[in-house]
């Protein structure tokens, strides 16, 4: 079973993406998903997609870069509102990967 590659994105790459990072880590562990996570700034998305090759992007900010990688909003990881839906969405994206 390969590791899934998760990229957490926010405006600065250090604030809300850190909270998202922690939240998504918990979801992965709970669901027995083996993972690698990085965090980056929204402006770095295009270059990071090329080098890190994520399976999924969790973002707390709109991403302008065009990418074929599925993007899921990480706002529920911050506010707790809609967290179950986020978990379902993430598992749906990752179900073919793990």
């Amino acid at each position, binding site marked *: 079973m390969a590791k899934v590659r998760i990229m957490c994105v926010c*405006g*600065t790459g250090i604030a809300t993406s*850190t909270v998202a990072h*922690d939240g998504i880590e918990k979801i992965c562990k709970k669901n027995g998903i083996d993972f690698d996570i990085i*965090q980056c700034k929204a402006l770095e998305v295009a270059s990071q997609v090329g080098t890190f090759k994520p399976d999924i992007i969790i973002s707390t900010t709109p991403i302008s870069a065009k990418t074929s990688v599925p993007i899921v909003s990480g706002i529920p990881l*911050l*506010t707790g509102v809609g967290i179950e839906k986020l978990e379902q969405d993430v598992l749906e994206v990752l179900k073919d990967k793990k």
Partner: protein
Amino acid sequence: MLDLKLLDRDLVMLNIEADTQKEALEKLAQRLCEKGYVKDTYAQAILEREKVFPTGLPTEGHGVAIPHTDVEHVNKPAIALGILQKPIKFNLMGDVDPNNQVDVRILFMLAIKEPHMQLKLLQDIMEIIQDGVLLEKMVQAKSVDELVEATEQYAREKEGVA
């Protein structure tokens, strides 16, 4: 649970008079700058970042924004807390539609130096903003002491439950 070590009482501002987002952000940023937590460039960086990556968050009660910016503008980590005299509109975080705004009364302005160090603090803030009763107490507080007491009481109750 609530770690208030980064919440310097000198960085709590009540009753901020501001008509625009810019004014509100500048007043709080200036306080961080006066106290040496951030560099001169911080306020401008905050304003620019807020335009591109807004930080308004909808809550059960008073809207909250968590403006912050890149580490190079920060000397030492801190959090400034500002209560606005009247609500000011902020765009929603993560929302592409600029028409979706939230009326913000409470500003948590973050001076972030390293990501993981402040994870707990950010999580605490996220927990606070989900508690409409506490937000109301913060907005109604007549003094900094009263506001800090409300958050400390909240923390004690949380610990009691856990």
